[in-house]
């Protein structure tokens, strides 16, 4: 059996991360990490052990560096359904 047959479309890459911790970037300056348990063709996701990071940029244009102060809010959720229309990307977490 050729395992390469497994990867034919982008969704197959997401499938590799099933049951693994994933990093999800969402609209509205939100990011999630969590263990992926389900996804579908709309990129609807079900994650567990989720940590959400919300970034609120204050005064984006002010300051000499062109960067505003970023307020980061974090919260944790046990089990979360994420609606696919807000998902920008799904990736394995960066290995540190």
């Amino acid at each position, binding site marked *: *059996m*050729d*395992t*390469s047959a*497994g*990867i*034919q479309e982008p969704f*197959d890459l997401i*499938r*590799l*991360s*099933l*049951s*693994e*911790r994933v990093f999800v970037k969402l609209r509205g300056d939100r990011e999630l*990490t969590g263990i992926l348990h389900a996804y579908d063709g709309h990129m609807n996701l079900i994650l567990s*052990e989720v940590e959400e990071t919300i970034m609120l940029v204050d005064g984006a244009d002010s300051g000499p560096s062109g960067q505003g102060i970023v307020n980061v809010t974090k919260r944790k959720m046990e089990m979360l359904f994420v609606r696919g229309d807000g998902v920008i990307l799904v990736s*394995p977490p960066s290995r*540190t």
Partner: protein
Amino acid sequence: MSFFGFEQNDRLQQEKQRFREGKLEQEDLAVYTWGEDSYDGLGDALQEGGDELNDETFGGTEQVGKDFDFTQQTLLIDDQLEPLLVSSDNTFKQPFAQSDLSRDTANAHGTQASSSSRPGQSLWDEKSPFSVLPRSGGTSRSPADHVRNGSVSSSNLAQSHSPSASAAPQTTSQTGVRTLQDIEAEMKAVAIAQRMQNAAVTQRQQLMQEQQHAQQPHHYQQQRSAPPRMHPQAQSPRFHQQLQQQQLIQQQQLREQQLHEQLQLQFRQQQMLEQERERMLQEAQLQEQIRERQLQELQLQEQLRLDQMERQLRSQRPDIRQHQIIQNHQHLHQRPSSDLPLPGTIPPQQLVQRRQQSPAFIDPHLQPQYQQKGQYMPQNIQLQQRLLSEMAQAEFMRDMQAVSQAEQDALQAEAMRRIMETERMEEKRRRKAAKIAHMSRYNDLMTQSDKDFITRIQVSQLVTQDPYADDFYAQVYSAIVRSRLGLQPSDERVLKFGAFGGVGLGMGQKGAGRRPSAMQKMEQQVERIVHNARQREQEKPVNHNNLQGALGKTSGRSYKAAPRQLLQVDSSNSSSHAHISKEDAIRKHGEGAAKEAAKIGAEALGVTADPDDTARRDPLSTKEALTILEYLYDLVLDIEQIRREQSGLDAEGTEAAETWNKRYSELVQQLWDDLRVMVPLETSNPHPFISLIAPSKGKKLLPRISRHLSSQQMLTVLTLLVACFSQMDIVVHASILDVPEESTQQQDLERQTQAFLGSVVQSILPVIAKAGLRLVSGLLGLLLERSDIVSVTQTRPGLAILTLFLSRVELIKQSMSTATELSELPTQDETEQCALTPQLALPFPFGTHCRRAGCRPPNTVAPTLHTETLDQPVWQFLAALALHATNEQQQALVTALREKVLENVASANKGWVADEDERRAKLGNVNLFLHALGLDSSQISI
């Protein structure tokens, strides 16, 4: 100009002349010159005349419609405010936001009034239309003007009676301002007179004829005395408004005149005080050159007349007093001005009344007075009846009081309470009913069949070919839940729709309330809908093709779902993917080395494979491992699927069973191959299999695979696992778990460790449980040989697997002693092995265990129940070790652990613990170890 009934230009000319002659010094009035420049004198050149027709144009003496109420009222206020303002030296607050200009004008007017012999005259010289505004209708016209103009004649009575005349500022000192009461009285008189007029139409007509000669000049005079000249601003709407107001005033004056006529008529009719009135009239005429007196007289006259009128009315209706008592409040407003208040102290009631008063306003109180003459008796009877009933009530109350005051009070309170209660209930009920009514607005908007239709449409969208597959999660989950609850899995969770598939009902609550027949009916209908939809779909391509391009071709490629492919890579060439080519190489090699690996597995005694025979490879990358794992999962799912299908296959022919068996074994073989268990140990570090079980889903896969693998295969898995034990992530990075600070890395490792203990250890447990002493010793030896035993025993997975082995040995030992006579008696060889086992424990560094077990840095992690639970496997392992230890070893163990044991016991006994659970956990842990030595924590005394 005169067309509008205003002043004729002869007077204007006069004024102008006066102005030019330098009589300016007479006017200490501030002159506002704005607007003067723009006056072109065109108005002077206008031809005047034909004023006789004014009445015709403006309806003459006809009553003004109600539509003019507003302006009339405004006018009245303006009329009276101005003199009031002047008289009281601006102490009166103006209810209208008059501009400073007009205020100034008023002040100036006041000053002029004292100095000028012709007060108000200068006002007409002002060019500003604003100067006209506050005294529109000739408010400040003085009798002197009339005299000079020669237009004052027999209409003096009317003229003097008009508010404008009586409101002249000069009169303030002597007679007081013509107050609101005066005006009010006039208004009332108007109303009365009008009614009187109705009562005696014929007489009025007669009078009209009589006074026609007097009326006519009066009109003329009024028109002549009307102030404004033609300014450029005259065209402004505001100016027109003013004109309208002036017209209205004229009409009012006319009506007032009429009123007097009517009054006269009345007096004459009744033949009361006729002579006195006539005398007064004459007097008024005589006094027309002495304005002050005239006004005074006129006011007196007016008052007298009104008094007379009332007296008269009373005499006509002796019951009027009674009537007034009944309608006391109403009459307060109507009381004639006989009791005139002092100027400036206007009773609020009268103010109100005044506001209500307009010429068109028909006094509602007066009217009944006349009309009620006939109605009075019934009203009186009503009153009497009411009084009677009140009396009766009072009597009843007296009776009640006679019974008992307290009782009655109680009764009353009770009654009140009940009434309140009932009212509350009623209110509640009413509100509820209103809410229901509100909500039920849409009741029966949809019939049941409508609702069913929508349900069917919705259900038809859910119909699929394979309801079990598409609703897999819900189906299986509910099956699991049901089996957990001990329910029979008999009830159908899928709505079947003939040959077209069905709808998964999930947990099955949906159809609970429905009758079976209704469900059947719905099924049929949904089937039809789905069927029709399918047919339409089949027909669609034909139509679609016909219409394609009918509206022109779309440029671009937006209709394609996929983004533009920038790299044209031949996907069929798998070698372009590095990991896959590598994978293939591993696979090829794996097949070649299969026999070798099989031999190793079969030996299962920890004999390592020849290192020279295998080519070293890079370990699998995470992605490769994940790809393989997903493929394995597919296989597992397939196998599980055909295992489920097998259950229905039993009764059928052997041929089908054979095909199934063939397919099953094929799949299992595929699974086995892809597990890469048979890949030589030295192929890579970590071994591919270890890489596969590195992700949690790899670990979770093992228990699911173990069901399909033979025990021999599982043994091989176990051997491989033991051989490569130290290669595992969870062993390599185990020290992270001991770091007190929390991190995601630690969390993930914890998760992996749990997955290992929960999945991998569980799947190998049956293998170990059946393993003989020889196998266990072999595995132990393998572990000792290939791994650093010290580091392994410091990890939870290592402790777990060691404890497993040791406890298995102990079990074998026990079975040896109990089953000596049986055929299962272990061979001599095995006994020797058993004796050897404790030797394994010799090199164990107890100190490290001791540290691991109890000597956590106290300053970092407070001893909690959690740490105690974590320590449990350590104590278990120590116990297992102690069981196998020789005497010297036991002594060494006890010496090493003495401190920790004592500490645990002491803290448990002396209550240095958070709660009972922790105390029990501490003692339990110590006892685990002590029991293995044949001791107990209770024997220890501190």
